[in-house]
């Protein structure tokens, strides 16, 4: 059967990986290619690169980063951040990325998902959803603009709409859990994953190997993403997979 995927996420700014990567064995811990190869060797199933460049130059640099990564990496990778048009998608996918991830732009203009899916196929189009619980409404709401703006979309409804438009995968981040390292938002993940027909990647809250097991068992996630615990070497992809194997989770 198909395995559960472990996905390290790297923030890239102006062509360099940022947010404290602590790998002494690397010549250059800020180089996206070196880190990509490192995670590949560790058994990562896929990688996500999030472009957090603020400038136009930074975005152009990202295309070069994608080309370099694609030339050296033999596992799939997704690029997100600042993709606002079909032209942006073309640039990134033609540079060698396997998938692009759309967030704010997809909410503002859902037909962008369809344009991308029609042109490249659904398998290339990931819709990233930032979700936060709204106490008064008693439901999870979709946030845009890096979590700064609340929208009127309820998360499951938006996920379904995104898939109707052609999204082939959902990258679901719990803003309530993000950075807390006390586990993924299992209720949210399970609510979305059981409601949709495409794979769901859980994100936000990973602190240890047990949390990954929970994301798959209770969260019903198809994949789980993490950033800082891998970068700071609090655990490794290898360790997480070893643990999952012992727990009977099917991993590569």
């Amino acid at each position, binding site marked *: 059967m198909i395995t559960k*995927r472990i996905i390290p996420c790297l923030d890239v700014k102006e062509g360099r990986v940022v947010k404290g990567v602590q790998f002494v064995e690397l010549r250059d811990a800020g180089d996206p290619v070196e880190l990509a190869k490192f995670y590949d060797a560790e058994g990562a199933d896929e990688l996500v690169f999030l472009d957090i460049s603020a400038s136009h130059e930074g975005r152009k640099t990202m295309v070069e980063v994608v080309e370099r990564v694609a030339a050296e990496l*033999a596992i799939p990778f997704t690029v997100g951040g600042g993709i606002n048009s079909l032209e942006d998608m073309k640039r990134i996918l033609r540079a060698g990325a396997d998938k692009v991830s759309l967030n704010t732009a997809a909410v503002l203009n859902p037909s962008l998902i369809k344009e991308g899916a029609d042109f490249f196929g659904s398998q290339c189009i990931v819709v990233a959803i930032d979700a936060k619980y709204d106490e008064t409404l008693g439901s999870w709401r979709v946030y845009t603009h890096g979590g700064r703006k609340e929208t009127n979309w309820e998360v499951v409804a938006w996920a379904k709409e995104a898939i109707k438009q052609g999204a082939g*995968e959902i990258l679901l981040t719990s803003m309530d859990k993000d950075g807390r390292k006390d586990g993924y938002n299992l209720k949210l993940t399970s609510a979305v994953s059981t409601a949709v027909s495409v794979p769901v990647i859980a994100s936000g809250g990973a602190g240890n190997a047990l949390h990954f097991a929970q994301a798959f068992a209770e969260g019903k996630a198809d994949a789980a993403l993490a950033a800082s615990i891998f970068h700071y070497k609090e655990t490794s992809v290898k360790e997480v997979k070893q643990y999952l194997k012992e727990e009977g989770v099917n991993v590569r």
Partner: protein
Amino acid sequence: MIGIIDYGMGNLYSVSKALERMNYNYVISSSPEELSKAKGLILPGVGSFKDAIEILNETGLAYFIKETVAAGTPLLGICLGMQLLFEESEENGISEGLGLLQGKIVKIPGVTSSGETYKVPHMGWNELENRNPSPLLEDVDGGHVYFVHSYYATTTDQDIVLASSIYNVEVPAVVGKGNVFGTQFHPEKSSELGLTILRNYAAIVEERVS
């Protein structure tokens, strides 16, 4: 030299980069004339079967592929490129394929015989189970490879199924007959194991010619 067939629907970059890393010469081209200089061909593909076969027919590439394969040149189809090797597909209405392998491309049902639903596309790493020996699977015995697809091949010719993967249904993962080969997964995205398969294909290409 390996000729990568460019008909506008491929993941050409990652396939060519994988060959480059292994130091194999390649040419990416849409011209039969250019491609006929290659000792072996790769037919990549991402997208819909119907669109793909229409383009191959209109450009004369379908005819070229059939002629070249009949003359003994090895061909490797990847993902949609593998599906195109079969007789027909039901994706967006029935359309005829290249007919180099016996069988039909049908939708992954997404529901088990007991009524449980499961996710389609089949996306991610799944395990290979060897079925029939082949030079393409030299040094390959099981292991995981990366799939992304919603349709799969069904065939009554079990001899052509070289390896398969289970995703509720049995998905032919590596197929082959004579000088025609195909992988439903992406070898260029399947880490070391995928590169081994590409290397084996390159060796087949070299052997046939010398």
